[in-house]
């Protein structure tokens, strides 16, 4: 029988090891798996590479991981939101490495990893500082940059609803990076506001369960 439901958030994050690359869904405050991140802070794994659009704000979420010194590197598009105090502190103290990736390239690199592609050419960032050192190519008279797939060991995902097969749907703009990160990690962990008793309607599924390893309930909405 297929049943991806686990007892709680702590059980869900237990496999995350020191030095792991961890994708974390969300954009702004929408779709961030706060419950799983709190559980990861409590779990204690360190030396993490965090792949996410932002680098946390305030004392919550990725900020808490940075505050507790668990993060060795951040790969993101926009680390500097008002209130990203813990990222800024760790960055200025050179305690955390930073790789900046344009947002669409970040999404596409993650998708390439999840889809088994070896890389792609994108026009984004051609001729800019973010393309320095990268392979470029002229295609039909236009400049493109070669970008590599970006996989991860784990993905922490926030869903609106999940069933025991791991099928997921999302709420409003909380969808963002969650479906694509679910595809790209070797071990995808989901917090769902609702864990359904029965199956999700097949047409309503956004992320098919094949991409999901475990599901824990976390009913709090930010």
């Amino acid at each position, binding site marked *: 029988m297929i049943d991806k439901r686990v007892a709680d958030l702590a059980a869900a994050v237990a496999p995350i090891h020191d030095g792991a690359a961890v994708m974390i869904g969300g954009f702004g405050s929408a779709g961030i798996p706060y419950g799983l991140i709190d559980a990861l802070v409590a779990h204690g794994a360190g030396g993490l590479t965090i792949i996410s659009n932002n680098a946390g704000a305030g004392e919550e979420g990725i900020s808490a991981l940075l505050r507790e010194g668990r993060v060795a590197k951040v790969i993101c598009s*926009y680390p500097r939101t008002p209130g990203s105090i813990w990222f800024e502190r760790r960055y200025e103290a050179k305690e955390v490495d930073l790789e900046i990736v344009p947002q669409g390239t970040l999404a596409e690199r993650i998708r390439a990893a999840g889809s088994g592609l070896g890389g792609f050419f994108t026009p984004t960032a051609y001729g800019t500082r973010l393309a320095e050192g990268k392979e470029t190519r002229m295609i039909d008279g236009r400049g493109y940059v070669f970008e590599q797939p970006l996989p991860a060991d784990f993905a922490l995902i926030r869903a609106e609803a999940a069933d025991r097969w791991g099928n997921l749907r999302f709420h409003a703009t*909380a969808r*963002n990076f969650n479906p694509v990160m679910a595809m790209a990690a070797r071990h995808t962990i989901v917090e769902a506001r609702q864990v359904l008793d029965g199956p999700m309607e097949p047409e309503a599924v956004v992320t098919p369960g094949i991409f999901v390893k475990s599901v824990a309930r976390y009913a709090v909405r930010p």
Partner: protein
Amino acid sequence: MIRLSDDDVARRLARDIPDGAYVNLGIGMPNRVASFVPEGREVMYQTENGLLGVGPAPDAGMADPELIDASKKLVTTIPGSAFFDHPTSFGMMRGGHLDIAVLGAYQVAENGDLANWATLDDNYPPAVGGAMDLVVGVPRIYIIMRHVNRDGSPKLLEKCTYPLTGLGVVSRVYTDLAVLDVTADGFRLVELAPGNSFEDVQSVTGARIAA
């Protein structure tokens, strides 16, 4: 010189958003444009975080904390809205499906180069977001900004000195002093803000303007 208010510049730009357009508005001044689009035009605003058809701020008590725009502001849906994920959102941008993007700028060069994501101050960590994807994909990039910096130095230049966001991407610039097109021959004046002379505007611009 007589400078338009930020709202008046946004109002001027809004006149150029046609009925039925698909538009991405950047954070800050660009975001104000939506409120000035003339009545009777149906415009679909895209926000990079996965919503086409961005509606106004919610009424008190009706906010959905997971329904936000790219600046993290609470928004609503409108009739015809659709939600989608990030790969789809940036496919819309890079694939040329949007009609117009309205962005702010630190600098615009006469060849259309845009600098709007990083300064020369290395103390700050860099942050790029979706700007580089927008500028390569959206056919009309409209810049809305003050004509000069606070210290009076020009933002419209022969060549950008700040790190570039994109090469040759700007279509038109709306400032508190003028509207300028970027052409193969450099900046070309479209119109002056009321009460200013061509010479006034040229004098605070770091590149030649064709009248």
